[in-house]
């Protein structure tokens, strides 16, 4: 496959970035999108140019490291996949592909396509935990009965890998799908009840402090989420937040 890549290049967080064009040839349809970028980088290195910086780690869709806004969509045109799981067969020979970092004020660009997503870590730190007594009398989690429906919903929420596609897709750069998944995975389990009120209030407060936008229920996040995290989580977070606020 022969392609034209239009890639966002930015020297550092304070530099002014711009889209640069790179022609590339010899791409196999079975390559992943990141493997295609590896080929480009080898080409750039051989030419004595600086390779394109992008986030990646596991390359099997579970770590949440890879991001990339590809042709106007987070993780590209395919559904329920991360960028590393996106194959070049989803594109046509001769295509022009625009590659940009996920854009949000709360996700500043570090270099080229790499962004700082530590805002998500700080939201997690604000309440994404449970208190367990580890003095030796800890109750085995498997010994605590959990309603099957709640267990399934909690597990589904916990599959969020924190990649930030929800923020990238949202026209408001809102982080409510991510935050609601992290609130829900605990709110649905008996172990999460102790800190339930404190958790949702703290995580939402941190989310707002980070400068993410407000959710307007467009549903773009749910469509673009590589793990299919449901909007039901946002409704649950809203309920949890209202009930925690009313409790005072």
């Amino acid at each position: 496959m022969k392609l034209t890549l239009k890639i966002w290049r930015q020297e550092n967080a304070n530099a002014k970035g711009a889209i640069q064009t790179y022609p590339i040839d010899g791409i196999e349809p079975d390559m992943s999108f990141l493997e295609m970028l590896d080929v480009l980088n080898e080409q750039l290195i051989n030419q004595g140019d600086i390779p394109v910086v992008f986030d990646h780690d596991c390359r099997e869709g579970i770590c949440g490291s890879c991001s990339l806004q590809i042709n106007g969509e987070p993780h590209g045109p395919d559904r329920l996949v991360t960028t590393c799981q996106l194959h070049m067969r989803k594109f046509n020979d001769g295509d022009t592909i625009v590659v940009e970092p996920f854009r949000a004020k709360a996700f500043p660009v570090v270099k080229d396509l790499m962004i700082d997503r530590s805002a998500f870590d700080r939201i997690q730190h604000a309440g994404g935990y449970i208190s367990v007594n580890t003095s030796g009398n800890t109750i085995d989690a498997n010994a605590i009965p959990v309603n099957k429906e709640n267990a399934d919903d909690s597990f589904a929420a916990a599959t969020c890998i924190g990649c930030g596609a929800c923020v990238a897709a949202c026209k408001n750069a809102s982080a409510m799908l991510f935050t609601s998944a992290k609130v829900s995975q605990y709110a649905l389990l008996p172990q999460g009840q102790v800190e339930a009120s404190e958790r949702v209030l703290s995580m939402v407060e941190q989310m707002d402090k980070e400068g993410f936008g407000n959710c307007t229920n467009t549903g773009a996040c749910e469509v673009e989420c590589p793990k299919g995290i449901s909007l039901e989580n946002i409704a649950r977070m809203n309920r949890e937040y209202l009930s925690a606020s009313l409790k005072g």
Partner: protein
Amino acid sequence: MGIISSSIARKVAMALSGLFLVFFLGQHFVINATAVLSPDTFNSWSHFMGNNGLVQGLLQPILIFGVVFHFVMGFILELKNRSSRAVKYASYKGSTNASWASRNMIISGLVILAFLGLHFYDFWIPEMIHKYVESHPEDPTRYYAETVHKFENPVRVGLYVVSFALLAMHLWHGFASSFQSVGFNNKYSVALTRFAKVYAILIPVGFIFIAIYLHLNQLPH
């Protein structure tokens, strides 16, 4: 950060004020529909709404507050949301994952706001002057003739039609989405969303029908 400035509290406030306005719209439509079905009923109901102390002294100020709150909060949230992505995408395919109506509530909202300006100029301000400034003796039979006369001008009818088309789009997203905002997303949501979408189309189309009907059925001068 207090609850007043929290993103979720603002979202819930937008939803609740929106639901209140949706309810008001339905009530307004029912009264307007009597202009087509029975001009005498239209006159008597309009007379009641315009002269009842509870409606004028309590419900009207609440309604005006609801409208002002909804659009002021809408502007505040829009500005906040725009500032949350300082550098825009070179390529952004919003239409692949969200409807036009959901992505452009500010546009449909601004058209509705402009329409409200026209609507107040047409009806509310003359009514206030008629009742409270010029202090005319009340004539319970004047409302139908005055309303029909307003729709004589085809340009005004055209503006009403365009405004209600945008209102339909605003309601298409806003009505159904307000349930999600207040935390209501369960097994009844599919039916509720269906009802909201039907309402979003039927009520504005009904208003458009009434405006065109009155335009075509002018009273002799």
